[in-house]
């Protein structure tokens, strides 16, 4: 029974939106369009997965959008400079990881509130990206990345493959490894973890480092999709990621995390935006309906919580 009570309001919303758009938005339910939704949501999912861990440990990471912009530009510049895709990707991962570890140290070791620490690193990452590129996008990255990005395996586009693989990895990490237990513990009862002799600080920093690392993978998709790097292309994505995680049923208190919920949250936003686009709904209504989706999803949860 525990599983059923767990389903967040967003699951119902997703089903309803799917049905409504299927009926009213011509071409919505077609396979290419569903693949579109998958492609469009994959980058956001790569940010939302580690964000789930961060929110479970009563943290927050506002810097992911800006760091993704920076790692995207690093990847593109490395490719333009003639490096192989592997080297360029390693550089992007390195930069992302560095920012992740920096966030972790600021929050865990120096005790800064997560909102403030990551707001600071947001500025720094965005600043470096802008200064590096003078605000221009970095193009001419050669064929290697676009070719990789365009590959399909059994008809499934590369970005959806990466997203699915990453979800499996995070699911395994959270539910099948010691690290996963410790993520629940850091959020639920950090004192107990320390008393159990576990270096809680180390794993807590690891949670933030993981977020930084994932911006490297997300950069692969974003730069591949745009065939160029852009310093502020991903601004605001961190807010969408936070919203998707919270709408998906993960709560800041007591380490109450639910990874599948995050996927539902990401898809709900993706389906709504795509559906409204396909129906060519007036743009101002699209904007308002995103806000409505967030609030209705949370409303369902808060009403159900009061009923139980």
């Amino acid at each position, binding site marked *: 029974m*525990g599983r059923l009570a767990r389903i967040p309001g967003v699951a119902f919303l997703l089903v309803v939106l799917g049905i409504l758009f299927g009926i009213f938005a011509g071409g919505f339910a077609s396979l290419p369009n569903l693949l579109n939704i998958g492609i469009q949501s994959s980058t956001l999912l790569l940010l939302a997965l580690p964000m789930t861990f961060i929110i479970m440990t009563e943290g927050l990471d506002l810097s992911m959008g800006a760091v993704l912009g920076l790692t995207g530009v690093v990847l593109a510049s490395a490719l333009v400079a003639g490096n192989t895709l592997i080297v360029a990707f390693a550089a992007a991962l390195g930069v992302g990881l560095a920012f992740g570890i920096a966030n972790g140290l600021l929050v865990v070791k120096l005790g800064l509130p997560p909102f403030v620490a990551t707001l600071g690193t947001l500025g720094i990452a965005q600043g470096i990206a802008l200064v590096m590129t003078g605000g221009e996008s970095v193009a001419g990255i050669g064929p290697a990345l676009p070719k990789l990005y365009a590959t399909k395996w059994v008809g499934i586009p590369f970005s959806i493959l990466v997203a699915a693989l990453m979800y499996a990895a995070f699911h395994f990490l959270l539910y*099948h*490894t*010691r*690290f996963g*237990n410790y993520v*629940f*513990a850091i*959020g*639920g*009862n950090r*004192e*107990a*973890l*320390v*008393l*159990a*002799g*576990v270096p809680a600080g180390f794993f807590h920093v690891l949670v933030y480092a993981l977020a930084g690392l994932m911006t490297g993978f997300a950069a692969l998709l974003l730069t591949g999709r745009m065939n160029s790097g852009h310093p502020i292309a991903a601004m605001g994505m961190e807010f969408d990621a936070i919203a998707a995680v919270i709408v998906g049923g993960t709560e800041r208190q*007591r*380490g*109450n*995390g639910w990874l599948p919920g995050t996927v539902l949250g990401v898809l709900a936003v993706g389906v709504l935006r795509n559906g409204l686009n396909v129906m060519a709904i007036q743009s101002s209504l699209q904007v308002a309906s995103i806000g409505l989706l967030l609030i209705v999803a949370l409303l369902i949860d808060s009403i159900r919580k009061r009923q139980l």
Partner: protein
Amino acid sequence: MTPAPLIEMRHISKAFPGVQALKDVSLAAFGSEVHMLVGQNGAGKSTLIKILCGAYRPNQGEFLVHGKPVHIESTRDARRLGVAVIFQEFSLVPYLDIAQNIFLGREFPGRIPGTVDRGRLHSEARRILDLLGMDVDTRTKTHRLGVAQQQMIEIAKALSQDAKVLVMDEPTAAISDREIERLFEIIRKLRGEGIAIIYISHRMREVFEIGDRITVLRDGANVASLRPSETTMDELVRLMVGREVDTTYRTRFCERPGEAVLDVKALDTKSGIRGANLTLCAGEIVGLAGLVGAGRTELVRAIFGADTRISGEIFLKGRALRGSPAEAVRQGMGLVPENRKTEGLALLRSVHDNMLTAGLRQLFPHGWYTFAKAKRAVEGLIKSLRVVTPSARRPARFLSGGNQQKVVIGKWLNAGSKVFIFDEPTRGIDIGAKAEIYKLMETLVADGAAVLVISSELPELVAVCDRAYVLRNKAIVGELRRTDLTEENILRMAMQHG
């Protein structure tokens, strides 16, 4: 010649900035023995066991196992030497299941490095739970468990470390008598298997019921180490407090109660209270007795308006209450809640600010806050309640349990409350401060206030109350006048089945 202790701490000293927590303390844990560790709050008990389990490191002192010196630098060292501790605040992770909690930090490695061998984890957990006679599924998430079950999981955690020395910090604080009995059975069984048990407690009855040896700590130093048979309760209290404590909590009882101040008629609440009727008169101290889970807290929270009421009437000084804490406070009711730290105080704010939280409207009816008047009110209360604090500006976090409770009471005095509800006022408070709090109740009632007090400490209820209601599974099952207010009567009423 008594056998060599399993583990021994000698000449332990530990100082924190500004306070010498432990001065040359020694403690020995002998196999198959329940070693009671008693002492007031701040006597250094929890510091001592945190040093034993490696959470803190002593400034001086040595550890001996079977007479040979060893080092305990971290919780891992302590665990290696077979020391396991159950702290008062449970060390459970709500959204992990029972097996994951029991083996937190000591998971069995799976095939792939970093993973957990879940099969073995759950089978081992099952084995330990069976040992404790718990038939709960090891996959249940701990946030679904009751307090007593969580207590058992803590013990299972200790047993899973096949601990030779088990330290328990006030394990019976939040569980029912039935569950206490079950706990003592398990303790006796473990003792039989040669395990040394160090048991910290404030409850004198437990010391004599299960203790084999008693060590008394006062102000961070050994005061005495003796057998229960060699001492009496009063002597123990004197040793603990270091001065004569008159445990006569109440001198004059209320002969002629004033007019009915609080009147509850046929109260049903969403939290399960059914048909409660209750009256409270000025000048009276009325007790609410019952087992854990009998619904005493639910009842007072409904009266105070903190929980939603389904039906029934509540009259305060004749006026019907609609049911919100704000209204209750305006009409002169004050609640000293069960958990001070989360519901009674804002720990980060100063004593000054905490004492004013409820009385703002009372002290400053026109809405304009003046420092002078506020300061006078707070200083006055600090003096009259004898709150031990270097200054009114000190955050409440740094005060002892007793002083924190006094601040909460001060909060309600500032609000001019006439009806006080105390929910377990003396839990986690040492003997000295307990007496002061009950004396305070007496002065309140003497000035014409009325007091409703919940307490699981039956001896205190009997010593303090003019009369008492007894609750059983969320209903008031009887009322005991002063004359027949005895522990036996209370227990009989509270435990009657069917």
